[in-house]
């Protein structure tokens, strides 16, 4: 179960057929205190790179993009009542949504943890 990363600071973790998507610790730090998360509804389909969610902090708002094409199966309801979770555990408990991927193989095109770390350093 490997986690991959996008240039727009999302992470995606595939477990069998279902992939879990969230934002990276770096992104959460850049945003500052998260105050609101707008999540997609189960059943919605996205192409890779399409806007799937929005995360708002006091001073910024960021679009969250679907790393790969697929259909949303679940949104993380816990974030609605407690958006602060995103600042506490962005790469674990504060996942945004789960989706059934159109092509699980496409995962390998995304950055590995090391590649992402290097990407952020260079930014």
């Amino acid at each position, binding site marked *: 179960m490997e986690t991959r990363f996008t240039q727009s600071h999302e992470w995606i973790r595939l477990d069998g057929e279902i992939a879990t998507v969230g934002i990276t610790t770096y992104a959460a730090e850049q945003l500052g*205190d998260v*105050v*609101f998360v707008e999540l997609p509804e189960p059943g919605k389909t996205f192409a890779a790179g399409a806007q799937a969610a929005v995360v*708002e902090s*006091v*001073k910024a708002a960021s679009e969250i993009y679907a790393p790969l094409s697929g259909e949303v199966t679940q949104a993380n309801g816990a974030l609605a009542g407690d*958006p*602060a979770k995103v600042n506490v555990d962005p790469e674990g408990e504060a996942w945004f949504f789960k989706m059934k991927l159109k092509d699980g193989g496409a995962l390998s095109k995304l950055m590995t943890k090391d590649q992402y770390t290097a990407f952020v350093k260079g930014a």
Partner: protein
Amino acid sequence: MMNAQGRPTSGEAVIAADAPTTSGHRGLDHEEKLIFEIGRSHVTGVDLPDVALDEFRLGGLARKHAIGLAGLSEPEAVRHYVRLSQRNASIDASFYPLGSCTMKHNPRLNEKMARLPGFADIHPLQPQKTVQGALALIAELARWLKELTGMPAVAMTPKAGAHGELCGILAIRAALEARGERRTRILVPESAHGTNPATAALCGFGVASIKANDDGRVDLAALEAAIGPDVAGLMLTNPNTCGLFERDMIAIADMLHRAGAYFYCDGANFNAIVGRVKPGALGIDAMHINLHKTFSTPHGGGGPGAGPVVFSERLAPYAPLPLLVEDAGGFRLIEDMEEAHGQGAQPLGRMCAFHGQMGMFVRALTYMLSHGADGLRQAAEDAVLSANYILASLKDVMSAPYEGPCMHEALFDDAFLKDSDITTLDIAKRLIDEGFHPMTVYFPLVVHGAMLIEPTETESKATLDEFIAVMRAIVAEAKAGGVDRFKAAPQLAPRMRLDETKAARQPVLRWKPA
């Protein structure tokens, strides 16, 4: 007879200045509750006859329940609002170097003239023959705006700068439609004010960002590459949001016009060039003017503003209703689309009810008449001089991303703080303790930790020197490793730093009874 009731001539005991008081007030600084916590529903500060109605012609729609409003007697109301006012910074009381806001002195003659009954007590729909003076004033202000900008037409009704931007972009859309064209994109420099892309999106355009060159101006090559048959226009602020004059305005205008596109100019920074440069000579097609910036109408804690828009010949036909014309019968408003068509105009619609921000028109014209052409020119020159004076006096201890000269505002970034724990925000909050309203911070977004300082022309050199000395001292302290006084700031304001996260996570947007 000597007064035998002796009183000591000097203070007997010294109490620490920050010792708590029983009341919670501190001398002249008062804590003040909400009106709902002070007022009572049966109290009223207005004497009105209690007219009993035993027969309502209200169609059965009379209110069934109380509203829940609190009332105050006049003395309670005056005390409440005076105390609240004392918790506000204002340009009347202190230097307010807010970049891009043009916090200049608000002349009181403006207020006196706006309150003349002949202006304040006239209804927008009373017969036009009874308001010829008002229409003449609007026409005269329009004339000044056209003359100062070198543009042939002006739409007077937009209620604020952003509203003016909307008017301008709608005019561009209307012009394209009249040509039978449907273009889908508006170009905006990456340093643009947020209202620019928001306006473009409101008008149904996609937004493409143009990067700046190393000189802080629009990158001409990037612009050329971005211009195509689907581009409706460019929205550019000049001087730009970094406080720099866009040298290539004419080349940019030519590029756009050759491609059949339009050139919208955001006039927020007009104070730098008013009376000295006509934007019309730079090839623009439309420009909104913030009367509450360049022309001294008061900011009022956030509004009202006024944002008339000047138009080129290309866009003039699309100016919104109402149109103001003068003929043998005097001044007349054309409020009907068909009548406007009969005059050869194709108004894009109507931006708002009635005829525009008359109260702000009176104030702005009063200001213009006071300054005259020579005074306005001097104002622009002094504004630019003062900003450059600040830039020259601080750039050795702070970091300026652009060499200079700047126009009416000086831009710094936070590079000079990189070896400290101090942020731009900390500098701003510390300035509050020092008695200054902070400069604009974190705008424009193209520079890290931006600090944009616009002194305007209404500050004395003594004030500028004081500000410079204070900034130099603060910066030295930050670089020397000072932290606590910054992080704890402001400590001398009515409130310390407020929890904005809590305000957004658990919004409480009104008082509710317990």
